[in-house]
Structure formats: C-alpha cells, structure tokens
C-alpha cells in the first residue's frame, strides 16, 4: 500500500503513539481490501461507546489525549441522565449510570467532538455529493451514501476514531465509483401504493430486500418520486440486518440513480426481485415478535425524528391521552427538540403523556438495556430497525409490535396494539 510522506511519519510514530496506532489499524484494513493508498476524509461520525468497562477501556486506549483532526459528530448516548426520573430509571442504578455516562461525555468534549449525540447527524452537519468521509453507525453511513451521495465505507467504532484523529481512510470499497453501482434490482409490485407508504413500509421493504442481497447494492425501482429523506432514513439499518450492503439507490430519487443504465453502470442486474403486497405483509409479520396485545412502551424516532415527524406525531395526539399503562418515547436531537418546543409540539405530546428525548437512543439503547428494570416486555414501533434488533438481543424477553406510525399512536392511546 502506497503511503505518502505524512502517512509514513504517522505510521512510524513521529506524530505520537495514538496516531501511530490509528494509522496502523487503517493500514491493516487497507491491506485486507487491497487499497492502493490512503485518502483524506473531511468528516467522521463516531458511535457513543457502550456502557461496559471493557469497551470504554478500548476507547480510552485509542483516544488518550488525542484531538480530532476533522469535524466529527457522535451517535446518541444510551440514556439522557437529565431525564432519568421521567424515564423511570431506578434510583439504585443512577450513581453507576452517571459514572459511565459522564466519563464518556468528558472524553468526547476533550477530543473536540461536536456533541450531537444523534444517529442522524445529517440534520446538523451537511455533506456534499462525492465527499469522502469516514462514518460508523449503519443509518449514518447508509444515508450518507444513498441519499446524499457522499462516500463512506461502513466503518467500525475503532476505524471511525482512527480516521477522526488522522484525517485518513484507506481508499477501497464505497470510496471507488466502480463499487457504487447497483447489482440487484428490486421492483415495487403493482399491487402496492408507494405514494401512501408510511415510514414503517419503507423499513419493511428494505428489511425484506436485505435477505436476498448478500453484499450486493440494490436499486429500488418504483418508489414514489415524492418520498422524503425521512422515508429513506427508515430503510438504512433494516437493509443491513441480513446483508452487508451499506448502500442503496432509489431510481429517479437518489443522486446516483438518474436512470437504470447509469445506476447499474451500463451492466445488467445480477438478480431481480419483485416486492408486492404479499412480500411486504410477510416482512411486517416477521418483524412482529410480540405475543400479547398489551403494550408497555411505544417507541418512535429510531432513527431520530426530524421536525416534520414530531409535528405529525403531535397532530395525531392533539386532544388525546396516552393510556396510563403505556410509556410513549420519541427520540430526536437537541436542536430539533428545541425547535419542536418552540412550535408547541413538545407541549402537545407531553400533555398527552408522551416524552420527547434528545441525546439518547430510546429504542436499542434504553428500551433494550433497561427493559427489566423498567418492566418493558412489549414495545410498539414504526422502526424496522428496533423491531429487527431488540427482540433477538433481548433473547426473547422483549417482544415488538411493528406497524405504521398512526397505528403506533392509536395503540398508545388505547393501551393495546391494534388498528382501530
């Protein structure tokens, strides 16, 4: 692998031990994928480290007193300690949680990370088409590739840190135009009405597609030209739950998919699948793992909501009350929460008995890790990510009802899962 003078100095330890370790990791990854050289990256996104001491130790060994060299944002924390009481976190756990969260926040501040604590930093930090970046967190990476046309491989926690402190990444995979073309065509069946798709439909669609993709990039053909970035956001992680394809195209919608020919790089698709009503319904069924209709938590904002989504939820809740047995959690980032407050959405939602949290991962974070302490056994959501990840990781202790946003809200009001 070719390294320029600066990269060699980094690798040989002339820029300090931490940069040396980071460059060593990046070179090893580059070797694994036959990268010819390194390239400069202009932005990185980190994952907020999990609560175990083992992982924090690894994080500390990599970061030490290093500073980020490029603008770097960070994923949500597992809890928002400022809202611990409303979340219902037991007093007995507070001291320990405070210890592990505050050490992480301090470490990020010291590194110079932009403390976004969101899984959708694209609302805050903008990218341009073709920009080379180093991102971890499947939603962040895939949205950047697919919707924004920026270029990032699906980085791990460690390589994202290495790129943040060196400003480099190996030039392989999705950084190369030749690796970004579609390989598999996913046609939307004529018996579906994509104009009326809810966020949940987009998630179920990508979850279903992921099962046939392996490492091949799909081209979704027949989705609404009016679909929004928020719709695309719900497709990202579900696609990777059974595949390792960190990119997708939507014909006529995403920047690298103007025509079928351009999207497939002039080649024929290797495979072609049709997703119709039957397939979409089967994806919804697979994603519903709950047994009883009683629900403990309705969790929205996985990935974090934008201002329109919060407005839609507020509209559905206006003048209503969430059932006393049910918690309603909505995740977003702090700037959006402030905006939603200003627009009266937060008051509407919180008067109805819901909670809007910033800075934390409500679904795969709190709902999963604290399910026992909070008595959460059944969760309802419009997020195929949450529905796909939580029941397996909770080893059957938590079941999920997966459905459209309005069904989730109606169920929160009734206290039971159902459509009416």
């Amino acid at each position, binding site marked *: 692998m070719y390294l320029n003078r600066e990269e060699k100095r980094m690798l040989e330890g002339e820029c300090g031990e931490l940069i040396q370790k980071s460059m060593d*990791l990046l070179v*090893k*990854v580059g*070797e*694994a*994928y*036959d990268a010819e050289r390194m390239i400069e990256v202009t932005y990185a996104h980190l*994952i907020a480290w*999990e609560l*175990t001491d*083992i*992982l924090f130790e*690894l994080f500390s060994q990599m970061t030490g007193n290093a500073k980020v060299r490029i603008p770097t944002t960070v994923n949500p924390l597992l809890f928002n300690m400022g809202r611990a009481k409303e979340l219902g976190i037991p007093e007995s756990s507070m001291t320990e949680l405070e210890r592990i969260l505050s050490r992480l926040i301090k470490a990020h501040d010291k590194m110079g990370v932009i403390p976004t604590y969101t899984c959708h930093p694209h609302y805050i930090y903008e990218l341009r088409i073709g920009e080379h970046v180093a991102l*971890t*967190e*499947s939603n962040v*990476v895939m949205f950047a590739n697919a919707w924004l046309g920026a270029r990032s*491989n*699906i*980085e*791990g*926690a*460690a*390589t994202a840190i290495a790129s943040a402190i060196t400003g480099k990444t190996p030039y392989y*995979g999705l950084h190369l135009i030749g690796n970004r073309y579609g390989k598999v065509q996913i046609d939307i069946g004529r018996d579906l009405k994509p104009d009326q798709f809810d966020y949940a439909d987009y998630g179920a669609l990508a979850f279903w597609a992921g099962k046939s993709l*392996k*490492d091949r990039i799909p081209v979704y053909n027949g989705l609404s030209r009016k679909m929004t970035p928020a719709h695309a956001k719900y497709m990202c*992680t579900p696609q*990777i*739950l*059974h*595949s*390792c394809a*960190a990119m997708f195209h939507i014909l006529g919608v995403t920047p690298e998919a103007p025509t079928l020919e351009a999207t497939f790089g002039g080649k024929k698709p290797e495979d072609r699948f049709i997703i119709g009503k039957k397939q979409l319904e089967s994806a919804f069924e697979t994603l519903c793992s709950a047994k009883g209709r009683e629900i403990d938590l309705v969790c929205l904002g996985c990935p974090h909501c934008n201002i329109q989504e919060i407005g839609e939820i507020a509209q559905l809740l206006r003048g209503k009350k969430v059932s006393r047995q049910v918690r309603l959690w909505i995740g977003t980032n702090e700037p959006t929460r402030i905006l939603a407050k200003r627009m009266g959405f937060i008051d509407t939602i919180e008067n109805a008995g819901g909670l809007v949290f910033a800075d934390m991962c409500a679904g*795969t974070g709190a709902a999963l890790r604290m399910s026992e302490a909070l008595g959460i056994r059944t969760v309802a959501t419009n997020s195929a990510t949450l529905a796909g*990840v939580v029941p*397996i*990781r909770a*080893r*059957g202790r938590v079941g999920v009802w997966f459905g459209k946003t309005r069904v989730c809200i109606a169920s929160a009001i009734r206290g039971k899962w159902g459509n009416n």
Partner: protein
Amino acid sequence: MEIILRGHLASRGRVEGIALVSSKPFEFRHVDTKRGIIFASGHNLEGQSVKNKILVFPYGCGPTTEEWGLYELKKAGVVPKAIVCMSAYPCSTIGAIISNIPMVYGFDCNLLEVIQTGDHLWVDADKGLVRVSKR
C-alpha cells in the same frame, strides 16, 4: 481427503482448529459475550459455543457495533480461533483486526458446500490459505 482453498487476507495470523459452520450470515452481537454461546433463536448454531472454533460463515452482517461483539468475546476468553468467510463485512474485519483473530475471505467456491462442522482446518491468513481435512 485434503482440500486447499485460496482466499484473501483480512486479519493476520496462523492457526489450526475444528470448523463450526454457520449456514446463515453471522452477527457477533448474537453471541453471549460471557460464555461464547450463540443465542439467536432459529439460527442453525443456536446453543453452540464459538470458543476455540474456526468459525465459517457466508458473510457478516448487522449494525456496526459488530466489532465490539468480537472484542468482548476476546476479552472473556471465549473467542473463535479464526474466521473464514466468503464476503468480508468491514465491521467483522475490523473486529478481527482489533481482537487479533486471523480472518480470511473470498474464495472461488461456496464455502458452505466445501467445509462442514467438524472438519479440521489450517488457516494461514497472511497467505490467504485454508487447508481443509474432511472429518
């Protein structure tokens, strides 16, 4: 009977051991980090331990915290000896590198047809080679 398979280096090292073959894409977050037991219900290896095995699977998948799953197994001493797969999901590769576990990928055959659980494997990740001795 012995077969030599040629793949590509993902993470350096040389090791020999017994194959454990996953017919499905593999997520390390579906392995108990203390005991090394696969807990994902419905997985063909549900209830089995990855400890000291040479884990063979078509490709890695799942959210990006994959690498942590592998690293925590390493710290608990219940890690597989090596990973052999067809497509190398970057998060699996990164996990193998930071945990010092040899990993090889690629190959021009369907690994799941060539290697069975219980086969004896010699992995030379630096050269991208896997020698298979059928049980």
